[in-house]
Structures are given as structure tokens and as C-alpha cells.
């Protein structure tokens, strides 16, 4: 059990020493006083924190005076005593310093390190390598290094080795690569063939191998601005280097006639030239659908995007357009060769090709309601005039998020100028969705 509770008997004479010390002028360093038996007395006397942050360590002294007699104190208390607003890297380092300077033998360091590992995320330092190195420094050096073959055989100081491995495992979980300082510390503390050293070697072997295997890498500090985030995610899902991003609206506040403030969301869309071509070839009698929101995960944040797509063209209506030979002069786009190829040269899978219909554009917005998406469509219309003639249906479901297939029921749309929202239950009964649809006939330049 990784328990960090232990009995911490306070030295009785420590209290009198503290009282004595209180009379001394305040210094900025820890005073180690020796009594008659030349024992090192332990009491809390920390340097004051920097002026701007207020009296953090004063709480340590107060706590000590309250607990006069022996009491059960956990190692986590040291961290919990730091007030919430002061939980930073500096105070974390100070707590470690308090512990290390308290006792030359570092009694209870294993429990302290376990408690510190647990509290790291509260202080916000779990991704900081220097803090891990400082925590590793808490171990006394050269005590746990095996000195003969019997010690080497029998898992010398297993509890400390386990604690070291635990520390490295937390580093591994957060994806932090250790450095030479870590290695030197580990060699000094545990020796060269110890478990923490082996763990360090494993981290140093596997981490570089897997660091760059993501074919779609995400930048380390994700952009916080929602517009930049939308830019990044749209270029990611577009799968086309020619795709162009258009910002239709930046986030701003607008005032209505009654004086209320409305926050307008950002609307960013993306469309590539091939998507524009597909949209231009689309049959104006068939509707196009605005579907969403679909989730996209970028490390730990989830963003939502909307898609403008149409149903796949049924086989009867498919027209095979011959390749235009003047499109590319470097090589012929179509070859009519009578090659004698057999099963051994067949490189395609024996699978029916899925045709889910073309996707014409994608967009991301913080507010996914009808009005915002209408704005997006009107913005798209400037480059794709066909959108003015094609009826647009909105399928904004709150339930499952997958691209709807061609076989789904299409709620009928009405050829009327004013929009009407109706609720309809879609056919698959397992996931009742609210299909909000609106028929909108748009003319050029009409913004809704």
C-alpha cells in the first residue's frame, strides 16, 4: 500500500527551541540548533516567501505550536498547509526544501515522495522535469547502492527502489523525457544495475522511438484562441493541402435594438477546389444537408465541426466524364493498356467501395444553431452560386454523430419562403433524434 501516513513524533524539546527562536530576530535561513546531546533539533523555521505573495510559511509555524504533543501527522500535511492560491512551483520547491533541510538522514523520505507525487498536479508542476529532479534529490545518495554481490542479488532496499520506479513511472505517464541530470542522480542514489536505472533505460529507449510516429501531429501547447484552434482542426480534417480557410465571422459582441448584448460566435469554414468542383456539378434538384455537430478530439480538448454534404448519386445517374487530356501534360491521366495481369498482381481489396456522398465544405463554430449555420451557408454561397438554387436541409442531431446514409428517410421539405422548424422522429427507433430541418430558398446576397 502506498500509504504516506507515518508517526511523526515531535521532539518535545523542539517546542522550547521554537519559543527560543521566536525571540531571535527573523533571519532568512533555516537555523539548525543543537542541544546538549548534539542532536539536531527539528522545528519549522522557514524563510519568508517573497513579498508579493504574502506570508506562506507562517502557517507552518502556527501548525507546529498547535500540535504540542505527539500526534499522527501525514506527510501530505506539508503540502496541504499551503493555501490554495499559493500553489505554484516555487512553493512546491520550498516544501521540498523544508523537508530536506529538516533531517540529515531524511527520515520518512519515501512517504514524502509518494505524497509529493500525488500532490504535483494540484501545484501544476506535473510536467516539469526540474521538479522531478529536485524530488529525486530527496533520496539520500550512495546509501542504497549495493556494495557486494549478496546485496546485488537480493533486491537491495526494495521499498526505495519501488519509490524510484514510481517516480519515473509518473514521468512516463505524463510523457516527460528524463535528462542527464536524472541519470546522474539515479546512478548516485541507486547504483547502475538497479530497478530505477533499468526503468530509466527503458524510457530512454522507447520514448524516442514513439515520439514522432503520429502522422497527424498536434502542436504541444494547443492554441487557446478558438479561431486559431478552429483553423488548426479544419486544416487537419480537410485532408487536402489545397483547401482554403475562410473566416466568416470573428467572435464579437453585438448590440440589439433593445440594448442587449449578444455574443456573436466565430464561424470559420474550409473548402478545397475539388470540393468546389463537386458542388458545382451537383444536381440542383437534390438537396444538400448540413450535418453536425461531429466531435474531433485534439489531445484532451474536444471541438465540434459541421459538414455540408449531399447524398451519393445513384448508379443510374452516374456519368463517367472522360479525363480531359489537357489537364496534365506531364503524364497521361488514363492509359488503355492490355496488360496480362493475373491474381498475383491484383492490388485492390475485394470489398465494395463505400459511397457516402460527396462532402462539400466543413465549418466550425462555437454556437451550432440554425442562424449561425445559415450565415455560413450564405458566406459559402459567394463562391458557390449553386447554393442559391439548391434546397438546404439542416440535420443537427443531439444524439449519435455519424454521417447519415442515403437510405435514411428524408423528411420532406416545403417550397416556402419562410422557415419552419418541425420535430420529426427519424426511422431507426434505437436513437430518436431531433431532426430540425428548414427549407431555405436563398437569393444572392440575402443574409439571414
Amino acid at each position, binding site marked *: *500500500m502506498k500509504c504516506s501516513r507515518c508517526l511523526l513524533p515531535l521532539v518535545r524539546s523542539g517546542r522550547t527551541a521554537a519559543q527560543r527562536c521566536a525571540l531571535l530576530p527573523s533571519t532568512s535561513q533555516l537555523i539548525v540548533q543543537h542541544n546538549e546531546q548534539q542532536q539536531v533539533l527539528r522545528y519549522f523555521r522557514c524563510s519568508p516567501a517573497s513579498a508579493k505573495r504574502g506570508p506562506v510559511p507562517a502557517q507552518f509555524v502556527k501548525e507546529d505550536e498547535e500540535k504540542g504533543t505527539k500526534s499522527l501527522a501525514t506527510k501530505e500535511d506539508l503540502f496541504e498547509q499551503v493555501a490554495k492560491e499559493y500553489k505554484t512551483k516555487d512553493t512546491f520547491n520550498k516544501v521540498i526544501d523544508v523537508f530536506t533541510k529538516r533531517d540529515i538522514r531524511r527520515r520518512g523520505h519515501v512517504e514524502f515522495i509518494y505524497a509529493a507525487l500525488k500532490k504535483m498536479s494540484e501545484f501544476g508542476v506535473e510536467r516539469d522535469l526540474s521538479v522531478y529532479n529536485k524530488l529525486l534529490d530527496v533520496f539520500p545518495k550512495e546509501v542504497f547502492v549495493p556494495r557486494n554481490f549478496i546485496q546485488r542479488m537480493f533486491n537491495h532496499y526494495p521499498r526505495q527502489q519501488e519509490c524510484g520506479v514510481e517516480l519515473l513511472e509518473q514521468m512516463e*505517464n505524463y510523457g516527460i523525457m528524463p535528462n542527464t541530470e536524472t*541519470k546522474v542522480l539515479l*546512478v548516485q542514489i541507486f547504483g*547502475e*544495475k538497479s530497478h530505477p*536505472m533499468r526503468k530509466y*533505460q*527503458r524510457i530512454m529507449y*522507447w520514448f524516442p*522511438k*514513439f515520439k514522432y*510516429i*503520429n*502522422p*497527424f501531429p498536434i502542436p504541444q501547447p494547443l492554441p487557446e484562441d478558438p479561431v486559431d484552434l478552429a483553423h488548426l*482542426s479544419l486544416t*487537419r*480534417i*480537410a*485532408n487536402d493541402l489545397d483547401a482554403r480557410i475562410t473566416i466568416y465571422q470573428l467572435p464579437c459582441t453585438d448590440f440589439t435594438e433593445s440594448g442587449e448584448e449578444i455574443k456573436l460566435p466565430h464561424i470559420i469554414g474550409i473548402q478545397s477546389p475539388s470540393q468546389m468542383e463537386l458542388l458545382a456539378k451537383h444536381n440542383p434538384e437534390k438537396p444538400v444537408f448540413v450535418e453536425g455537430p*461531429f*466531435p*474531433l*478530439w*485534439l*489531445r*484532451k480538448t*474536444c471541438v465540434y*465541426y459541421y*459538414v455540408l*454534404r449531399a447524398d451519393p448519386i445513384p448508379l443510374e445517374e452516374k456519368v463517367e466524364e472522360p479525363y480531359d487530356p489537357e489537364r496534365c501534360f506531364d503524364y497521361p491521366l*488514363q*492509359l488503355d493498356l492490355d496488360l496480362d*495481369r*493475373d*491474381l*498475383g*498482381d*491484383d*492490388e*485492390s*481489396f*475485394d*470489398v*465494395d467501395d*463505400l459511397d*457516402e456522398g460527396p*462532402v462539400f465544405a*466543413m465549418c466550425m463554430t462555437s454556437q451550432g444553431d440554425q442562424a449561425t449555420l445559415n450565415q455560413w451557408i450564405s458566406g459559402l454561397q459567394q463562391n458557390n452560386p449553386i447554393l442559391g438554387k439548391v434546397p438546404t436541409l439542416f440535420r443537427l442531431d443531439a444524439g*449519435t*454523430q*455519424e*454521417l*447519415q*446514409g*442515403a*437510405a*435514411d428517410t428524408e423528411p420532406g421539405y416545403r417550397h416556402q419562403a419562410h422557415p419552419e422548424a418541425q420535430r420529426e422522429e427519424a426511422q431507426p427507433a*434505437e436513437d430518436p433524434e431531433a431532426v430540425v430541418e428548414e427549407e431555405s430558398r436563398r437569393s444572392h446576397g440575402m443574409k439571414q
Partner: protein
Amino acid sequence: MSLPKISCVPASRLLSSIHDLRWLLRSVTPLSVPRRALVQSEYRRPGQPREDKPQWQMFKFDFSKGLEGIKKHFKLLRHEFSGRLVGPEGKPIIEHMLEQNRVIWEFRGPDSLQEWTLSSDREIGGQSEIYLKLGRNSDTCFLYGTLQNAPPRDGETRYSGYCTMRSKQPLASFDRKKHYDWSSFNTLHLRIRGDGRPWMINVATETYFAHQKYDIYSYFLYTRGGPYWQDVKIPFSKFFLTNRGRIQDDQHPLWLDKINTIGFTLGDKAEGPFQLEIDFIGVCKDYAHTEDFAYEVYKRNPEV
């Protein structure tokens, strides 16, 4: 450029090039080793009391069930015998020798979902959920659910939050274990549409020793997200050996001759809903890939 489907191949032209007919008997196992029986029960948490039912109460003896079982198993047995007459593994020898691509799993009907087992955090006391259903066009599978990171409060589990989908072991007649033989291929090809989350592909092979029971070869599957399908090609030389989730020091390449199951795991510590659609899973032979194994296989006790 699409190739015309080859329906009849001049077999005599190709067969005459084979001089050694012993090659045809490649799929026959040379010696009989005692086979381990197939255990497909639910996971029992260590520490949970075992069920105290006597053996005869564990099975449901039913006449109709027995009759169905007889029909099913004898049908499979008949297919096996007639398959041997066609060629190795029930396919003509030409196909077996020359095929470049083989689709192993595709999701074209509700029966295809029966081949897969879902499992999540819930078994050890967590709160993640995972569900599998057919996609909208009945052509793909849709794996979705929620991931929760909160570890179960049992005092010993420290990390949690995982969801997996694993294929069931293929069975021959009378519930004997059958293995996939992918020795003529070297790449795994998947067509998926994820939501940007990184998954892990786990391939489990047939093992012999007890300490190899949880040996799994894994590799990462990074999804791009978005409305477009993603073709993922992972050569088998990239799969590294893990046991119970821990990557091992002694690495060796994945042996393709007796593959049992393939699985997908999600454990990326991001709480929230996830979804993954799979169109098909196939294996192919990539002639341009000449790597044997991506990781070092020497140095058991490396110096510091």
C-alpha cells in the same frame, strides 16, 4: 485504373512452375502438440469469490440446443472436408499462393458484429462504457462510448479508463481453435474513420507457455478525425511485444502463422465520448517493405 476481375486463370501455366509438390502441404501441421482448450468466460476480478455451483449445473442441457449444435458442427466439419478437396484452407491453390490482399473482417450485416467482444473499465469497477453497432448504411461498424478516468476505489488500482474491442477466436467444428495464417502478407490495412483519438491495435498469437498467456503485439493507431475515411497501413514488423500492457525488454518480430485475435484499445486519458467507424480490416503484401523488425533484438543486460 481498375483491373478487371480475374475469374478463370490459366492454372496449368502457373502450376507447371512448381517443381516441388511438397510445397503444397505447407498448411499441414507436422507434429501434434497438446492443444490448450479455449476459455471464453467473463473476466473474474482477482479476489472475487468463485461460483460454487457443481459442474453439472454449469451447463444448460437442452434438446433443441443440442440439435442446433449438432447441425452446426457437422456442417462445419463437412465444409472442412470438402474444403480440403478444393485446396489449402478451403481456397484454390492459386489463390492461396498468389493473393496479395485478403479482407479478414468486414461489417456487412448484423452477423458480423457477433465476431467481436467488447470490454471496458466496467469489469474492474470503473465507469467507462463501450457499445458496438452497425453503421448507418449497414456497411461499417460503429464503435462508440464514453471513457471515464476515475479509478475504482478498491485500494490497489491506480490508473483506469480503457475500452477495447477484440475479435473472437475463430473456431472450427466442435469448438476447436482455428488460427489465421497471414504468413504470405506483411502489412495490416484498415479503413477507419475516427475522431482524432489515438487507439492501439493489439494482435494476439497462439502461445504455448503459461507466462506467454497475455502476450500481445501492439502498435498505435492515430486517427485524423473528420468526415473522410482514413486508410491505415501498418507493417507487421512495427508491432512490439507487450505482456499485460507492459512493453517487454526482449523483443522479437510478430510471427504471422498462428494469429488468434485482433483488438482495438482506447486509453488516452481524455475523459469523454469517443467513436470509431471501421469499414474493413484486411492484410496485404507490400513488396516495397523490406524491414524485418523495427526494434533491436540484442543486448539482454545493457550497460548503463
